């Protein structure tokens, strides 16, 4: 299953990567991930005033001898990260050639494999109007097989409701971490509300915005009845040059609004088109964006 889901060659290359978490997270388990949380590793970071209750073994007696002042040494703590892979499997994702959902699942599998290879805690879930079946947590590479099997079974269903689905997810998971959301954002429901639920709970959010080339640059024309694959709604349009120009303007306004929101809330945002090769997305696009290193 795993061999057919992602190429073995690609998996071997992915083992050399690691996910980058830019936010401080509080984890109980020491992992291989370097965290900005001060802890008990050997890497000294800073001092702070001693307060009653602190571990007296962490007092710096040399400082006390010279300054007659009690300070505690702070060390950088090495921890692993919980990676939440959230894949939008609404019907609008099941569209385009190559298929948007298919690419989202492959990306989720690839990034999940990176996490497992680095002993990160990997959880995965699909969502549309509600939260779907979840996977994990898994902690080591041996469980990648199960992750790929889970992803292979994912089917498109329902309309997207970001708020309901993501709120439900954070309620079920008390361990925040790096949440990577794969979606096309083509929904009347507000994605902002859903993403804010993650942020409020301390998740570091990366938004992978997946679009088909035909959504970016429509090549259809004539008197058409456009039927929404997800909702069944339709729009009558006469697609002449003027209408296409209007669409482009609206598309640009929409993407700029998304970028603006993500920028304001510290969300890593990457828009990709399904026409781009998977390995290029993993090893170049997301690497440049700082999601993997």
């Amino acid at each position, binding site marked *: 299953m795993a061999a057919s889901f992602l190429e073995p060659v690609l998996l071997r290359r992915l083992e050399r990567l690691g996910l980058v978490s830019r936010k401080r997270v509080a984890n109980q388990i020491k992992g291989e991930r370097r965290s900005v949380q001060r802890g008990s590793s050997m890497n000294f970071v800073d001092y702070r005033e001693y307060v009653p209750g602190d571990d007296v073994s962490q007092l710096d007696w040399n400082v006390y001898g010279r300054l007659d002042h009690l300070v505690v040494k702070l060390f950088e703590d090495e921890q692993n990260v919980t990676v939440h892979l959230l894949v939008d499997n609404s019907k609008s994702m099941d569209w385009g050639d190559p298929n948007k959902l298919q690419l989202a699942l492959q990306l989720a599998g690839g990034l999940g494999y990176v996490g497992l290879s680095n002993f990160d805690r990997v959880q995965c879930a699909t969502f549309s109007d509600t939260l779907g079946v979840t996977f994990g947590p898994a902690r080591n590479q041996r469980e990648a097989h199960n992750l790929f099997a889970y992803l292979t079974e994912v089917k498109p269903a329902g309309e997207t409701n970001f708020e309901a689905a993501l709120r439900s997810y954070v309620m079920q998971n008390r361990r925040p971490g790096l949440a990577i959301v794969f979606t096309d954002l*083509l929904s009347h429901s507000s994605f902002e509300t859903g993403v804010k639920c993650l942020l409020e709970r301390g998740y570091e959010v990366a938004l992978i915005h997946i679009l*088909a080339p035909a*959504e970016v640059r429509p090549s259809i024309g004539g008197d058409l009845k*456009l039927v929404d694959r997800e909702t069944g709604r339709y729009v*009558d*349009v006469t697609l002449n040059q003027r*209408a296409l120009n209007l*669409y482009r303007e609206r598309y640009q306004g929409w993407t700029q609004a998304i970028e603006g929101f993500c920028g304001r809330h510290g969300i890593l945002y990457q828009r990709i088109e399904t026409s781009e090769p998977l390995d290029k997305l993993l090893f170049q696009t997301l690497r440049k964006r700082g999601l993997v290193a």
Partner: protein
Amino acid sequence: MNLVAPAGLAFASLIPILIIFYLLKVRRHEQEVSSTYLWEQLHRDLVAHEPWQRLRTSLLLLLQILLMALLTLGLARPFFTANAQASDNVVLLLDASASMQATDVKPSRFEAARNAARELVGRLSDDATGTIVRVKDHPEVLVQGATKNQLFDTLNHVSVSTGTTNMKEALQLALSLNKGKTRSQIFVISDGAVPPMDDLQVGDAEVHFLPIGASGENQGITVLSSRPDPGDPQRQHIFVRVENFGQSSVFNLLSLYVDGKLMDSTDLQIPGRGKAEHVFTNVPPGAKVVEARLRDADQFPADNSAWLVLNQVGAYKLLLVTQNNLFLEKAVNLLPNVEVFKTEPRRYVGIDPSQYSVFVFDGYLPQDLPNGNMLLINPPPAEWLPITTDTIPRPKVTSYDRDDPLLNYVQFSDMQLSKVKDVDPPEWAKVLAQSGGHPLLLAGNNAGRKMVILPFDLHWSNFGLLPGFPIFISNVMNYLQPNDPSEIKAPSPGDSVLIQPLPQSDEITVRKPDGSSRTFKPAGKPIGYNDTDATGLYQVSQRSQGKTLQEQMFAINLTSPAESDIAPHATLELGGAKLRPNEAIDWTPAKHEFWPWVLLAAVCLLTFEWYWYHRRS
């Protein structure tokens, strides 16, 4: 407006269907997209879920409704009713004579006549044919058996002339054109200022008269002539006659211009339907051209001026080559304005013939003919003159042309002859007198030389003793003299003018009164010049290799009382009967369908709609 096929109006029922098409939404092809999220609210046209839409103001819809309405109208075949000619063929005699220039009807009588003709043509049935004859000094068939459109086109281009009217000839022509045709009518559109045509029988032909004109008030110069002053032949007296064709007595000022300068004026009182005459006696010697001019303009200005070219003949040299002919010498010496030189035939070879303009060869003919006109008496045979040395005894004058200017006042029949040489008349010569088929007198133009031939010796006859002999010689010299202005007769406007080229002339230019000119290559033959519609002075220049040989003038005047009498006539006297206006015109109501015009409008509308649709999209 009525309809031939009212059932065609049923086509209008398609108009509501057309509107329904506009109310219905466009049928669209379904296209599945991932989401309509971005497509919504793009354009107000893009979102409408009802099968019907509100009818919006659309130029295309209005154009299409109008198009349908026009097609409906066209299918119903609309027509209007108008009086039309019952005839299948009409002949329009359109008077284009000078009197039609009168402006008593604005803008002119001719324009009024043209409009009347247009109205007539407009009333013709669609399948009728017509003929238009422009009537002036000679009738001119402009178009024959033409359709209505061709008739209209011809009427647009016809123009008035300054000539006289020959309505009789035009009517004869129209009658011959109509001969054998049934349902045919002749329309005379004229001011009626034509001579009576009592002797013209129209038979069964249907002739109608459409009179044009309102007033006959006009004064015109009808005579302008000159005669030598009895006391001083070098001076000329100018005689002018002015006629008043109106009913009341008028005063007018008559002026005489000599070579373009005012010389004299006189007040004339001219009684109604009367005339006044005046003689100007103080014309200076050497004057070339005089112009008589009436001061007061009237409704017909063409006859208010007249021009006269005075005799321009100067003294010329005549060479008499004879062996003592007393009769001839005496007669020649009596001629005025002639310098006579005499020589004997044997001495002729030593003479320069270019010094002389006229030659008289008596019993002699040089090998090389000189350039000039000549009288040949008893000539010997030559290549160009088939004359025998044999003689015909005792010929009698059996006939001669009394009306020819050469024989004016000459009793040629009184002549007795003992014998005469037999001449085979050349092609260029005209036999003016003969004796049973044997010419006694010939004249003509032989390759640019005017010649008069007497094929007998004067001593063989009593001609030299007759009183008519000096007159004959005078007539001959008037004919042979060079630079004779009478060579260019002053005809009426539109007439042809015969211009005699000089033997040396290689180019002749005629300059019209308006300054335009036309050049001819004479090739030794007389030139017929017929562009004489304008009144005034015409200048004729004869040149040889760029050098002017001779300047002549002739005048074209409208001195025609018939044309100057512009009083419109209410009736036309024809074949002893008086033709009244519009008498018995057979009008009949006729349908004039105009669906082709409606169809044309529909096509134009369709073209505009196509343009508008593509411009919008």
